[in-house]
């Protein structure tokens, strides 16, 4: 019980201090809107194409929202030493880090539903397989958050975290099958695609929105879960190695 009080206190503090700030809320709304508008204009195929744009816009919104926020949150607290206060708290280290990343997961998930809610007013979304769509979004948010954590722990300055994140984020957008089908990528790029967590998330969303997924759901969910576990474990190992000297 005591551990969970600490967990919710950290989560609530992070939400208040970092995520529920006007710039972040406006980012969460404007970013998906701009991407939707951009692809809508680019495709020129009318309102009916909006569901086709959803997987890409949702994935990008989650990826940028979670990794950017976590880079700021973790790196800033490490730099001003307030993270030491958390390390001194008598709660399991794993629970502490789940609390620190919980806010980003919620923020990423909320970001994902902004384009969905907007789309719901414009087109019929009754065809979406929600049972795959919602868990898919949550798992994408988790894997992106843990990727952000992994990056944040590897650097010491906020700007380094943002720069380092871009090395992962931009290639991921173009290699994960959101905008170019993986089948049409050159052979030498395909292994990179399957080494990215977002590839499996994008496949779930494509399947849930318009029924076309390249891999079985079980494999997609299993791969995303594995990415979450590996990235979280690697980040924890790195924190213990680098920050508990």
């Amino acid at each position: 019980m005591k551990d969970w009080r600490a967990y919710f206190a950290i989560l609530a503090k992070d939400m208040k201090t970092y995520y529920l700030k006007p710039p972040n809320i406006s980012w969460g709304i404007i970013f998906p809107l701009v991407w939707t508008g951009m692809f809508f204009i680019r495709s020129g195929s009318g309102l009916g194409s909006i569901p086709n744009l959803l997987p890409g816009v949702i994935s990008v919104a989650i990826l940028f929202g979670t990794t950017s926020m976590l880079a700021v949150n973790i790196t800033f607290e490490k730099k001003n030493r307030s993270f030491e206060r958390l390390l001194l708290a008598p709660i399991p280290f794993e629970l502490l880090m789940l609390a620190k990343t919980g806010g980003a997961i919620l923020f990423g998930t909320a970001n994902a539903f902004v384009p969905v809610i907007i789309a719901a007013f414009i087109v019929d979304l009754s065809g979406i397989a929600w049972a795959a769509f919602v868990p898919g979004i949550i798992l994408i948010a988790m894997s992106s958050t843990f990727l952000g954590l992994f990056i944040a722990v590897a650097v010491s300055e906020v700007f380094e975290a943002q720069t380092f994140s871009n090395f992962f984020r931009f290639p991921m957008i173009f290699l994960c099958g959101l905008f170019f089908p993986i089948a049409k990528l050159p052979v030498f790029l395909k292994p990179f695609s399957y080494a990215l967590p977002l590839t499996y998330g994008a496949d779930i969303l494509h399947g849930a929105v318009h029924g076309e997924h390249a891999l079985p759901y079980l494999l997609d969910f299993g791969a995303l879960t594995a990415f979450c576990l590996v990235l979280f474990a690697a980040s924890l190992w790195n924190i213990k190695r680098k920050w508990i000297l």
Partner: protein
Amino acid sequence: MFDAIAVQGIKKRFDEVQALDGISFNVKKGELFGFLGPNGAGKTTTINVLTGLARPDAGKVVIDGIDCTRRPKAAQHLVGVVPDESNLYPELSGFGNLCFCAALYGMPSKERKRRAQRLLADFGLDKAADRKFATYSKGMKRKLTIAAGIIHRPEILFLDEPTTGIDVASARQLRQLISDLHQSGTTIFLTTHYIEEAERLCDRIAFIVSGRIVKTDSVARLLQPLRGRHVLEITCTGITAKIERALSVEFPGLDFSIGKQSIVRVEAGEEIRVGPLVRFLEEAGTEVAEARKVKPSLEEVFIKVTGIEAEAMEKEKERKGRKE
């Protein structure tokens, strides 16, 4: 009964620097134990090792009977830590910071609010309770950081340089607060570079230099060798080695040494008569500005044991404090 803290042969190395070189000491329950040493002596590293923020390369740390080298988090509920720099959350208010810190130790909501209000009142911060921590003065920040360190009523409190870089009035208030905490039975591990502060507050003191403890004892026992020693310091201009030699010939029962800023230090095993000395110096052509008797202090013990000038150590830290 267990000691509050038992440390055996702790070693810690950072790259080329041996930060701790086999230190051992015990702190009894309810004791105020001072850790005195210059910058870079290993004081903060010791606190980090004791509280689980750093892993020792060798040795053993036992807090209240719990082996913290094997289970670093097992004793964290027993300890409170006040770091050398205030590390609370700038975006949260004073009240918000204390409530958050209480929640980290699992305190229920109503209790944490009550406790936060009580501490804010005790530390004279109640009027600034709703202000953001970032807007606090340095003294207020230190006070709130100490309040955060004791919010969960820890049995053992680690205070790392609590009065560095703050004004005299705030430092005096903080010393009183530390003394009150000690009186209430809290075991306190205090690192400081202020020798007077250590002398006034601590039951026992360890001198640490270059990662090694060079002396550990109670304040009374450390001062024992100085009892019966009389010291006089005479500030004068125009003092030369020739005059110093003449002094030794004229006053054979006294020991003379000339320190910085033309201060003649006179030591003896009996009361020193000021008049003849001043007269002799003035007749020798110097101008005496001041002569004052010096009470034997821990500072002298520190200088003798470590060979480090206490004044230089304090100035160095003050410069650091101003930079922060």
